[in-house]
């Protein structure tokens, strides 16, 4: 299958290893990966901070960049969620019906990585090997906007050698929330503190999730604590082989 990668702005600029891991994983599973060069960002930060009007050209750019793709895969529940649940609405509310229709079509072809693997490719065992103690944080948007349910866990459980431990209060938000982390940094930090305590209580050496943004937040806190826990995106674990 020919898969168009929507790498997301955060992964492109700050976490290229997550993009590389996604490419290698999909190629290993026998699929061709393309990276449409016109892509930039989904515009979610603008939408969620109160500037959906400014996001319109960003949405238009995204829709055009992926116009000809059959399937679009993003290593992010949050960005895939914005494409699927916000783009068409924002376009419609700002009176651009044509863009709204095009965005609806993009939405139908867009998958978050674990959804794509489990639902489209119908694999749970991707042939990975990862002999470490790992705990998994289900990110809010993958959980409640996309409803990926236990797909990431199914994929992780099939990894050879992994010691997967349950994260207490896993479904509680880590406190990131985009610009929330800056505008309400005290509350965000309090939420982060509880999330970090939960992570540390598992004695896992690796924290994984399907969103680099939340991992940047929790990982940034864990790094400040000199805790030694490594944040790794789901794709980076699934890519790992013997």
């Amino acid at each position, binding site marked *: 299958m020919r898969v168009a990668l929507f790498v997301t702005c955060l992964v492109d*600029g700050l976490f*290229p290893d997550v993009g590389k891991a996604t490419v290698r994983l999909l190629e290993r599973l026998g699929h061709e990966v393309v990276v449409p060069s*016109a892509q930039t960002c989904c515009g979610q930060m603008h939408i969620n901070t109160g500037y959906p009007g400014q996001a319109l050209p960003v949405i238009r750019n995204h829709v055009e960049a992926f116009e000809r793709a059959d399937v679009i895969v993003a290593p992010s529940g949050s960005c895939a969620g914005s494409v699927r649940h916000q783009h068409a609405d924002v376009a419609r509310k700002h009176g651009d019906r044509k863009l709204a229709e095009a965005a609806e079509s993009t939405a139908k072809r867009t998958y978050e990585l674990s959804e794509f693997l489990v639902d489209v490719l119908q694999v749970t065992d991707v042939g990975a090997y990862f002999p470490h103690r790992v705990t998994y944080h289900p990110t809010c948007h993958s959980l409640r906007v996309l409803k990926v349910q236990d797909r990431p866990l199914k994929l992780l459980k099939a990894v050879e050698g992994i010691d997967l431990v349950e994260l207490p209060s896993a479904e509680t*938000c880590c406190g990131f929330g985009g610009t929330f*982390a*800056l505008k*309400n*940094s005290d509350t965000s930090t309090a939420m982060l*503190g509880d999330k970090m305590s939960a992570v540390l209580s598992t004695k896992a050496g690796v924290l994984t999730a399907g969103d680099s943004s939340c991992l940047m937040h929790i990982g*940034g806190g864990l790094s400040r604590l000199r805790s030694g826990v490594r944040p790794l995106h789901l794709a980076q674990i699934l890519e790992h082989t013997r």
Partner: protein
Amino acid sequence: MTTFLGMPTGGGHLTGEPFPKAAKHALGNAQLRRNLAKATGTIRAKRANVVGELPDWAELRAAGAAIKDEVLANLDEYLVRFEEALTSRGTHVHWARDADEANRIITGLVKATGTREVIKVKSMATVEIGLNEALADVGVHAVETDLAELIVQLGNDKSSHILVPAIHRNRSEIREVFRREMPGVDPDLTDDPRALAEAARKHLRHKFMTVDVAISGANFGVAETGALVVVESEGNGRMCLTLPRTLISVVGIEKLVPSWRDLEVFLQLLPRSSTGERMNPYTSVWTGPTEGQTSHVVLVDNGRTATLADPDGRAALRCIRCSACLNSCPVYERTGGHAYGSTYPGPIGAVLSPQLTGVDKNPTLPFASSLCGVCYDVCPVAIDIPSMLVHLRERVTESKRATPESTAMRALAWAMSDARRWRRLIRLGKFGRVASRHVPLPGWSTARDLPQPPKETFRDWWESR
């Protein structure tokens, strides 16, 4: 963006300090955070249990949302029908555009009875309009009869939770409040819950027997018959509704359901979502005054019509004040209710208060959420609070002139809408490698390290492959 001219906005207790500032105070109070985490954790588990046991919860929830939407879409007609039904059964109906007008009407009615004291059934609407203060101004003392409200009142405190107003207090704090403020209380009072309840009971019994004017709210009003419904746990509400000779009920105009049958849906949704009970202990329904009683209903707008005018915000008026969204909210669990500065705290407060007052008077509340979405999941009338918050954020930014934030966002959007511009910008990230080590990002770097920008972007890697 639509502006809502000419409609009355809400006054009373709907605004406070900016949320981030108020939250900071609350976050520093370790006792408060412990009480909140314990109380919300318990109630969350109870709710999940009793909701989980109903196989048709999803259908009930959809029905609840649909009934409320139907009422809101035809609110003018339902209100007139409700008024007619009430009047025909001998209840006097009054209309109040805002908090001030409501208080004027109610204090007038109370003064006409000549009483110096009124007893109250727990009611959010009266807290919203600041009725107790308005009564105090004309020399009338209002006695709260709901146990938690009583604790709040005696402690000279403010409610922090819709349903459990004293959720921020624990037993020993409550004992202190009673010992200090309750006339004639046993000085050796312990913090045993039964002893505390008994002390409150004695105090309140005396009031029920001697005070002749009561003020209530209502959880629902039935448009068809004029029936009012109060749902509660202690039975004190029922005493208030039946014993005094004058009963004044203060009702938000959005509280209506079309017919008696519709209550079937809400009386299942409400107790399971709020206290985590299959059924609440007391449901009082009255249609017209009891014998020898004079009854008044004051219908309050206070910003509700303005809320109704916004198609992307009006669903907030579906709210049945169950407080499931508060109990589930990770922000509320840490800051408590006072940080929201309004009678309505938590996620529903963050979308309702700014709409009632106009966003200019409550510009920080729509941002008081990480948009984690748990409030939408638990809401029994399916209010999509996260999307509504996002919508209200737009109303806030639109209400302001250019700010440094809006200018930066505009520049970023300009870069992001073209791949060549965007790539040039993120390649600057290489310079960021140097900068990020030395320049802290305010609000972020206090508790988190910034990631080291990589040597090459993903796209550079991809193209060099």
